C-alpha cells in the first residue's frame, strides 16, 4: 500500500518560495512523474515527500497517516539518488542489505532478500564487488536494489538516469518501468526529460516555478495542454506557438500546432514559407520553415521526403489538432 497525498505543501528557503501550495494525490501502485525545467522545484518536492527537507506549510499523508513531521526513516519510502549515493567501502551485498541491517533483520534473512533482489536486477555475479568496480548501469541497478529490498510503500527516483549514456538510459527506462509494474509499488519519478516522462508515467505532474501547471496522463497532456507552458514543454519537437495576426482568425491570443499536425505540400493551402533547415532522421524528417509574418515553424513529416533546404512549401495546420490560448496563456476549449 502506498497512497501519497500532498495538501497545500509549501517550502520556503528564507524568503525564496520554492514550492507554493502544491496539492496532489498519488494513487497506490501508480507511476507518477514530476517533470519541469531545471529549478522548477521538482527535486525539492520529492525531497519533501522523502522527508529530507521539512515542509514550511501544508501536510503530507502516506496511506492516510500524516507524516509531515516524521523523519525519512519512519515514512517507509526509499529513494534512488541522482548520484546513486552508494556506500563506497561496502560491497554490493552490503549496499543492498544496509537498510535491512539497520532495521535489525537477522543475517540469514538479509542474505535471502539481498540474493532475491540481486537476481531480479541481474546483479548476482557482482555481489562481492565494491561500487567502484562496477559500470554506471550496474551502479544504477545497485541503487535500485537498495530501494526495492526494503519493500517500501513507495519509490522515489531523483533523476536516476541522468548520469547514463543515451543507449543505456533507454534500457534502464524500460527496466525501471517494468520492475515497478511487476512489484506494483507506488513510484514518484523526477526528471527534466519529457521523453522519460511520457514513456514511463501513468500520470505526469508538470511543474513550473514551484507550482503545478497540469496533472494528467501522458496523452491528456499531449492532446489537451491546459496552458502555454505545458503546450511548449510536452512534445518533441516543441509545439509551434504563434501569436499576433495569424492567431486572430481563430479568436485566440496564441495558437499552437504540433509539428506532426502540419500537412506539408508543395501546392496545397495554408502558410507559405521557405525551408531553412531540413533534418533527415530516416523515420521522420523535421523541416524548419521560415514563414513570413509567422516566424520559424517546425514541421514533422513521417518517413523520408524529398523536401530540401531552400524550397518553398505550404504548411496546412490540421484544424482538429489546433490549440488555442487566451491572453493569460490558458487554453480555450470548445
Amino acid at each position, binding site marked *: 500500500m502506498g497512497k501519497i497525498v500532498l495538501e497545500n505543501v509549501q517550502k520556503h528557503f528564507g524568503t525564496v518560495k520554492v514550492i507554493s501550495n502544491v496539492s496532489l494525490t498519488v494513487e497506490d501502485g501508480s507511476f507518477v512523474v514530476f517533470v519541469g525545467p531545471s529549478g522548477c522545484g521538482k527535486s525539492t518536492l520529492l525531497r519533501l515527500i522523502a522527508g529530507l527537507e521539512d515542509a514550511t506549510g501544508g501536510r503530507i499523508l502516506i496511506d492516510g497517516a500524516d507524516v509531515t513531521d516524521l523523519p525519512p526513516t519512519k515514512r517507509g519510502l526509499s529513494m534512488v539518488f541522482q548520484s546513486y549515493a552508494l556506500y563506497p567501502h*561496502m560491497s554490493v551485498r552490503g549496499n543492498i542489505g*544496509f537498510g535491512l541491517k539497520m532495521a535489525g533483520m537477522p543475517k540469514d534473512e538479509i542474505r535471502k532478500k539481498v540474493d532475491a533482489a540481486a537476481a531480479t536486477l541481474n546483479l548476482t555475479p557482482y555481489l562481492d564487488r565494491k561500487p567502484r568496480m562496477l559500470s554506471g548501469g550496474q551502479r544504477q541497478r545497485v541503487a535500485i536494489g537498495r530501494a526495492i529490498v526494503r519493500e517500501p510503500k513507495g519509490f522515489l527516483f531523483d533523476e536516476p538516469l541522468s548520469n547514463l549514456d543515451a543507449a543505456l538510459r533507454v534500457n534502464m527506462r524500460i527496466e525501471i518501468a517494468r520492475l515497478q509494474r511487476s512489484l506494483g509499488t507506488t513510484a514518484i519519478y523526477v526528471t527534466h526529460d519529457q521523453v522519460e516522462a511520457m514513456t514511463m508515467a501513468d500520470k505526469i505532474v508538470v511543474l513550473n516555478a514551484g507550482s503545478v501547471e497540469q496533472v494528467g496522463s501522458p496523452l491528456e497532456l499531449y492532446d489537451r495542454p491546459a496552458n502555454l507552458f505545458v503546450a511548449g514543454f510536452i512534445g518533441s519537437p516543441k509545439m509551434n506557438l504563434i501569436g499576433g495576426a495569424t492567431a486572430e482568425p481563430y479568436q485566440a491570443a496564441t495558437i499552437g500546432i504540433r509539428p506532426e499536425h502540419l500537412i506539408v505540400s508543395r501546392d496545397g493551402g495554408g502558410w507559405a514559407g521557405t525551408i531553412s533547415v531540413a533534418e533527415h532522421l530516416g523515420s521522420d524528417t523535421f523541416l524548419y520553415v521560415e514563414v513570413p509574418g509567422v516566424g520559424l515553424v517546425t514541421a514533422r513529416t513521417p518517413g523520408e521526403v524529398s523536401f530540401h533546404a531552400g524550397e518553398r512549401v505550404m504548411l496546412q495546420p490540421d484544424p482538429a489538432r489546433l490549440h488555442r490560448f487566451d491572453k493569460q496563456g490558458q487554453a480555450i476549449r470548445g
Partner: protein
Amino acid sequence: MAATVNTRKLARAMLTPAVVILFIWMIVPLLLTIWYSFQNYNLLSPENTGFAGFMNYKYFLTDPAFFQAFWNTLTITLSVLVITVVGGILLGLLLDQFIYGQGIVRILVISPFFIMPTVAALVWKNMLMDPNYGIFAWIATRLGFAPVAWLENYPLFSIILIVAWQWLPFATLILLTAMQSLDEEQKEAAGMDGANFASLFVYITLPHLARAITVVILIETIFLLSVFAEILVTTGGGPGYASTNIAYLIYHQALLDYDVGGASAGGVVAVILANIVAIFLVRLVGKNLEA
C-alpha cells in the same frame, strides 16, 4: 619521441643538483653517526680514542635508562596518537556542524599548531601547570584541593598532555576536511535506509575517514618518536629518567655526558627502532592508502 627523450634528459639534468645535495645532506650525517658509533670518542676522556667495536652499542643498550626511554617513547607516541585521533574526530564532528563565528572558531582550534614547541611547553610549564602560580593550581585551590605539581609528580603524563595539545589541531584539521568531503547524498541515503546518528558514524563516516586517520597516524608518528623540545623545556627528562625518551637520552649522552660515541650508537639504535615502527605501521594501516 625524440622530443620526449630530450625533455626527460633535460629534466634529469635539472633535477640532479637538488637530488645530489639532498642525498649528501642525508647520507653524510648518517655515515658520520655510524662511524662515530664505533669509535671511542668521549670529550671527558680525550686520551681514549680508536675503534671501539660494539662497546658503545652494548653500553647504550644495557643502560637501564635505555629501556625506560624506550617505553617512554612508545607511551608518548601511542598516547598522543590515541588522544589526537579520538579527540580530532570528536572536534571534527563538532566543527562540522554549523555555528555562528565558524571561521574564527576554526582558526582558534587550529592555532596551537602554529605555536613552536618550545613556546608551547613554556606556556604550559609556567602559566598552566606551575604549582604556585599556574592556572591549574589556582583552580585547584579555589575548589579546595591541594595544587598538583604536574611536572614533578606526573612528568610523563604532563609531557603527553602538552604534546597532544600541540598535535590535536593537526588531526582535527585533516579529519574535519575529510568529513566535509563526505558526499551529502550518501548521508541522506543512509538516513533513508534508517541509520541513526550512531550507525551513520560507525558505518558511513568512520570508513570514509579511514584514509585520513591513516595519514594522521603516519605523519604524527614520525614526529612523536622524536619529541624533544617539550621535554627539554619542562622536565629535563626527569625526575630521574621518568620522562626521558630516546631522543632526549641521546641528547643527554652527547651534550651532558659528552659521550659522542655512545650518543652516536644511540642515534643509530633510534634510526633502527624508527624503521621497525615504520614497517609495522605501513603493514598495519598503510593498506588504507592504496586507492
